[in-house]
């Protein structure tokens, strides 16, 4: 059995109508090193598509998605059930995930029954209560209620409790805090952190908010129009972005810090998009890049190591540096041994 939890090999996803949501993405997640990996990007970057593919809700147009070494599309019934049990998700809208017809308990009772996790009602109830307490909710205030009787923050925390209950190996969190109030975000992020540190669950944190991504993740993947622009340690990337797109993003974030002024600490150059640049050929960011060169418009750059830090950037500015073998970003997430070995 492979050591890799999730392995995307040259995955491309093209929708009917021609939009390429993901373009030749390869990355893997190590089972031995449970970490929080952020997948960040704007709308249209392909980050949600990535999440849905990891969950098996979308199939790749080319390339393969492997779970523990087995192709997701080719699993038999038993393997499928195991896969469903080990890969769970928390979604963006805290209300939509609840079936309005049932009480909120339904969301936990069903998987306990389907995955045969408890032998009787009493044990099931206890499991549910434990999970709720772990995320800071009180069972007497939440169980037995209908979804519309709870606040958004409570619902989202309960969704996390459900994920915790199932003890998955991988949790896909798709924008879990974007529809939650500011004061509750920290609580939910804390719960995600706890899931990772205390229970060894790997979290794929999909978001457009780089501030929360920085706060909670170990590694980050910056996507732009289906391609990886920069990936690696979140510290290096956020504090010292090397790819022009990442620089533009970080420079545009309104930090709640009075000492950082918008667009001034990192040189942010606003370029009107050059729509003549054919985005299917060459670097996706070429049309907006202040450092664009002719070769950028011809073929997409591979991932280079700009410096000694554990991160890579897909940009010809670093073409004289080393290339990441196989373009497999997963090697960065495994451990820092790789960087040290260079």
């Amino acid at each position, binding site marked *: 059995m492979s050591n890799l939890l999730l392995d995307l090999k040259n995955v491309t996803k093209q929708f009917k109508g021609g939009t390429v949501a993901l373009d030749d993405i390869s990355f893997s997640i190590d089972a031995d090193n449970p970490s929080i990996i952020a997948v960040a990007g704007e709308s249209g970057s392909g980050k949600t598509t990535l999440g849905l593919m990891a969950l098996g*809700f979308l199939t790749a147009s080319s390339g393969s998605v492997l779970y523990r070494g087995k192709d997701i599309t080719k699993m038999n019934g038993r393997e499928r059930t195991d896969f469903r049990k080990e890969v769970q998700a928390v979604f963006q809208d805290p209300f939509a*995930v609840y*079936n309005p017809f049932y009480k909120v308990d339904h969301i936990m009772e*069903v*998987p306990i029954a389907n995955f045969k996790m408890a032998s009787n009602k009493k044990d099931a109830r206890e499991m549910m209560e434990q999970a709720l307490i772990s995320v800071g909710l009180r069972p007497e205030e939440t169980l037995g209620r209908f979804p519309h009787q709870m606040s958004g923050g409570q619902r989202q925390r309960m969704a996390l409790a459900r994920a915790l209950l199932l003890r998955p190996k991988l949790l896909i969190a798709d924008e879990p805090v974007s529809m939650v109030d500011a004061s509750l975000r920290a609580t939910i992020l804390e719960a995600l952190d706890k899931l990772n540190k205390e229970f060894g669950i790997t979290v794929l944190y999909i978001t457009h908010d780089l501030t929360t991504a920085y706060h909670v993740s170990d590694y980050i993947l910056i996507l732009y129009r289906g391609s990886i622009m920069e990936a690696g340690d979140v510290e290096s990337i956020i504090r010292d972005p090397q790819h022009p797109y990442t620089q533009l993003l970080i420079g545009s974030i309104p930090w709640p810090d009075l000492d950082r002024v918008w667009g001034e600490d990192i040189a942010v150059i606003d370029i009107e998009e050059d729509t003549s640049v054919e985005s299917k050929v060459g670097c996706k960011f070429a049309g907006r890049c202040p450092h664009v060169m002719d070769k950028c418009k011809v073929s997409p750059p591979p991932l280079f190591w700009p410096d000694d830090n554990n991160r890579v950037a897909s940009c010809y500015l670093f073409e004289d540096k080393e290339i990441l073998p196989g373009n497999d970003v997963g090697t960065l997430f495994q451990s820092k041994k790789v960087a040290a070995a260079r």
Partner: protein
Amino acid sequence: MERLQSNLRYLRRNTSLAIGLGILLVLILFTITGYMIIDPKLDPYPLAGPASSPPTLSYCPRSDPECEKTEPKAYIFGTDAQGRDLYGVAVAGTWMTVQIGLMAGLIGLGVGVFLGFTSAFYGGWYDLVVRWAVDVMLTVPGLLLLVVIASSLGEQKITVTGMGLIIASISWRGPARVIRSQVLSMREQSYVMMARLNGMSGMGIIFREMMPNLLPYLGASLVGAVTAAIFASMGLAALGLGPLREPTLGVTIYWVINQSAFLRGLWWWGAVPIGIVALIFVMLFLISIGLDEVANPRVRRAE
């Protein structure tokens, strides 16, 4: 108990539904008490009483002067030209008409829901075929189809059940379409995705997750199907293609026309079936407006 109380409170605000259900209650009581009073094998049929008698509380034939002392019979709705007790017709006919409506409505809904659900949920070529079939059937004028079917069966062979089945052959079209579009939009909901993550099978998701949320739409579709079915049965009967031996409201109207009841001054013969039919349609209409509001979840939550 709490749910019942909140439902009653809701009824106070949803007047259409309240009045509609009120009329339904009245009709049900009318039918139940009626069946306890009349003789269902005799009264709604010819020769049950004197011919062409206007509504009266005590009928005594002039040939029997002693009648006052024995039991004068009351014909509160009068009788028709063939001696049918119109009160009996009202009671039996209402129930028969409703039977036809319910049968056609329920079968139509059942078939329509099954087709709508499965084609929307599973998609693919199955969806293509079903969608094509429904669309083709929808373009065929329903009444025409029914006339063709009914007339080819011959008058003698049409019974109340027969009517129900004939109309059921077209009443599945509308529900299939409506339910399919509802399910298509429901399929994309996050809670369906969550159900899949919970390890539920396709059928499980349809019945346990989606169906309960469709109940208001199913209710509204049922009311719509029943209304259309009663309407169709009236149409067929008025053309003479109903179960002529039975006193359904539609057939009674057929006889009213056929026997020139109003020209002969027998206004009560026409008034009875027309009045009841009008009441039934008003009731169905009010219930469907009421359910319209129920089906919209945001309105409900405004409590």
